[in-house]
């Protein structure tokens, strides 16, 4: 348990350090995630050393953003004022992402499809 938390928070602390040193706008958590992947891939860390804490965190990911979501009550006026652009841009863009991602993958998959 302590070792699991050490690894997760150690990676996160590394991310915080990189952000602090470089002023980069990538979230520290993303840098920490990539570091964890690297450590696992290079076998410096074994998967079972982080498995139970990471499974716990990932399976409850959705719950953790309830409190920040509640902060929405502070922005009701902004949403009311810009309701139409928000909804139109979000819906149209989500459909665009689905189609662009799907088509690109489908095109290149069928061209170089030797593995599946």
């Amino acid at each position, binding site marked *: 348990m302590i070792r699991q938390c050490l690894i*997760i928070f150690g990676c996160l602390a590394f991310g915080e350090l990189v952000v602090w040193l470089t002023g980069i706008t990538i*979230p520290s958590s993303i840098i920490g995630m990539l570091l964890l992947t690297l450590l*696992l891939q290079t076998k410096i860390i074994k998967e079972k050393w982080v498995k139970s804490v990471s499974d716990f965190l990932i399976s409850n990911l959705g719950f953790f953003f309830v409190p920040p*979501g509640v902060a929405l009550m502070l922005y009701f006026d902004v949403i009311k004022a810009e309701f139409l652009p928000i909804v139109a841009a979000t819906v149209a863009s989500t459909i665009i992402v689905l189609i662009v991602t*799907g088509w*690109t993958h489908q095109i290149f998959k069928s061209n170089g499809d030797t593995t599946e």
Partner: protein
Amino acid sequence: MEILQNNIVLLALTFGVFYASRQFQKWTGWIVLNPILVTIAVLILFLQLTGISYGTYHQAGQYIDFLLKPAIVALGVPLYRNLKRIRQQLLPIFLSQLAGCIAGIVSVVAIAKLMGASSAVIISLAPKSVTTPIAMEICKATGGIPSLTAAIVVCVGLFGAVFGFKVLEVWHIRNPYSQGLSIGTASHAVGTSRAMEKSETHGAYASLGLILNGVLTSVLTPLILDLLI
């Protein structure tokens, strides 16, 4: 009614409402009743009815959202598990992620701007396709309104989960790999849970899309916003 402002009571309430909405969703089977969305709605209603300020609630809520960052770090574990899969199809996966990511940020920013949205709202919309903790981090880093991002991201996820597969069918995207990847890229964790119901392959590719787009979006959003705003 001062007891209602107690941190422990507010935390218990948050757990309770979430548990109840999850049970309710299981019971009805309606994807639209996403427990995250329902819990947020119920808690806002509760705070407004009791007159408790968001600041007071945040005293309790901060203990929960503290875990957001470590949870994103933990996504490194499934990413590691999927590395083999990624390497086998490096080019198609990378190109489709890159195309989907850029298309998503550029289109949402362009449409919102054309329709006259304010720059704070535009910045908050930019990371809408990726899972909320990542999106909120990007939003904070680029100067948007993180809780507005959180709400939009949940709505995007719901839209993808409910209509995503229909959109893909209409556009003749029919193989499970491309479908899963698109759903995860466009509608993150909520879409991914829908994809997992469809098949394990759909689910694995959707979680791949969710993670990779999270990384790409966090790198590209600041750059694209610089160019477009």
